[in-house]
């Protein structure tokens, strides 16, 4: 393949990944890495390096739109970023030490979980709770708009959420993905933060988390500019387009289709990892 062909094909694949990632809320990285490694035979280390920078681009590019709605909670985000950034450094350190086959298998398992989430759909919001002692001392609680008025919410189980966030950061650093799904589980399921607040705050955190592993990625040479260039530009274009269309589309069917695609990618990734093809 010539450089021009490679650039155009990767750009188009990445735009599609970013578009679907934005529509389904699963992010682009989770599709870009298997697309590059399985369809184009790109070494996984270049793929995760390129994915990591695209993750920073989409997270940061979307932030302006999210904050205007008033859902994200900057204190929760900043506090939990202590855990995700330390986790991200640990993950990036590990990525340099495990084999590509092992990376492919772990990636496949993360895809399986993403497929499960897209079939399951968006969970119903649990009842709001009062903040516990630690969350009160950290002033993590807030208010978010519900049907035109502000509703208060509390936060609980800070240590559990913090530990889960370390795991989310480690996965992000290991695989070059945003791991937004794990961040949302930590906030929504463990800390009892409203779903909408969890997803928008998670988006805010993804860029900072990814920036923490970027230093090690650069040092290891994972960020190859001629691979990362079309990936970053493609994912960003797709994600911005997806975010614009989000309001007009029926997302439920799309999530199912996307879930099926991810399931197939997961199986292929795991099989290729075991047989040593990736």
């Amino acid at each position, binding site marked *: *393949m*010539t*450089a*021009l062909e490679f*650039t155009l094909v990767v750009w188009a694949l990445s735009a599609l990944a970013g578009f679907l990632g934005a529509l389904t809320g699963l992010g682009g990285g989770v599709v870009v890495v298997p697309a590059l490694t399985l369809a184009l*035979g*790109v*070494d*996984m*280390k*270049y793929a995760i390096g390129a994915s990591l*920078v695209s993750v*920073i*681009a989409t*997270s*940061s*590019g979307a*932030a*302006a*739109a999210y*904050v*205007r709605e008033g859902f*994200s909670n*900057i204190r929760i985000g*900043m*506090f939990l*970023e*202590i855990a995700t*950034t*330390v986790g*991200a*450094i640990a993950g*990036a350190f590990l990525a340099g030490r495990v084999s*590509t086959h092992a990376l492919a298998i772990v990636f496949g398992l993360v895809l399986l979980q993403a497929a499960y989430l897209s079939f399951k759909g968006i969970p119903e919001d649990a009842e709001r709770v009062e903040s516990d002692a630690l969350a009160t001392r*950290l*002033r993590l609680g807030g208010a978010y708009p519900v049907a035109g008025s502000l509703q208060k919410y509390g936060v609980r189980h800070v240590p559990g959420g913090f530990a889960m966030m370390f795991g989310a950061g480690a996965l992000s650093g290991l695989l070059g993905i945003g791991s937004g799904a794990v961040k949302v589980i930590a906030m929504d399921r463990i800390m009892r933060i409203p779903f909408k607040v969890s997803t928008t705050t998670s988006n805010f955190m993804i*860029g*900072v988390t*990814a*920036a*923490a592993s*970027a*230093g*090690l990625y*650069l*040092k*290891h*040479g*994972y*960020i*190859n*500019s*001629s*691979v*990362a*260039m*079309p990936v*970053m*530009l493609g994912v*960003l274009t797709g994600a911005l387009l997806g975010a614009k269309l989000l309001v007009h589309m029926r997302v439920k069917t799309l999530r199912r289709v996307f879930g099926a695609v991810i399931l197939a990618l997961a199986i292929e990734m795991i099989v290729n990892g075991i047989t040593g093809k990736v």
Partner: protein
Amino acid sequence: MNDHRLEIIIGQLLRAGVLLAAATVLAGGVLYLAGHHADRTNYHTFAVGQSGAHTISGIVKTAARGDSAAIMQVGLLLLILTPVARVMVAVVGFLLERDRLYAVVSLIVLLILAFSLLHAT
């Protein structure tokens, strides 16, 4: 200064950072394709050193000579530094809010990021 205002400022900063980074990467990409469009590519096997300079000072020096790969790398660096700038603004914002606890929390995150990025130079 309140939390929501701080978030809006940060949101706009992030968008500006991404646009600047994307424009730089695009410029480097156009330059790269103009010179190398017919080159054979091979990214099948990972090779250390194939990704060009990987220290921040090395990237900036090579880009100054008009090297297309290094210009793309400068764009990618700008992108990586965008969230770092966001945390810096948060430190200042929380200080203006006289919120010592969260100024310290943001400072810890900033130090972790600085540790990681300085590792690469």
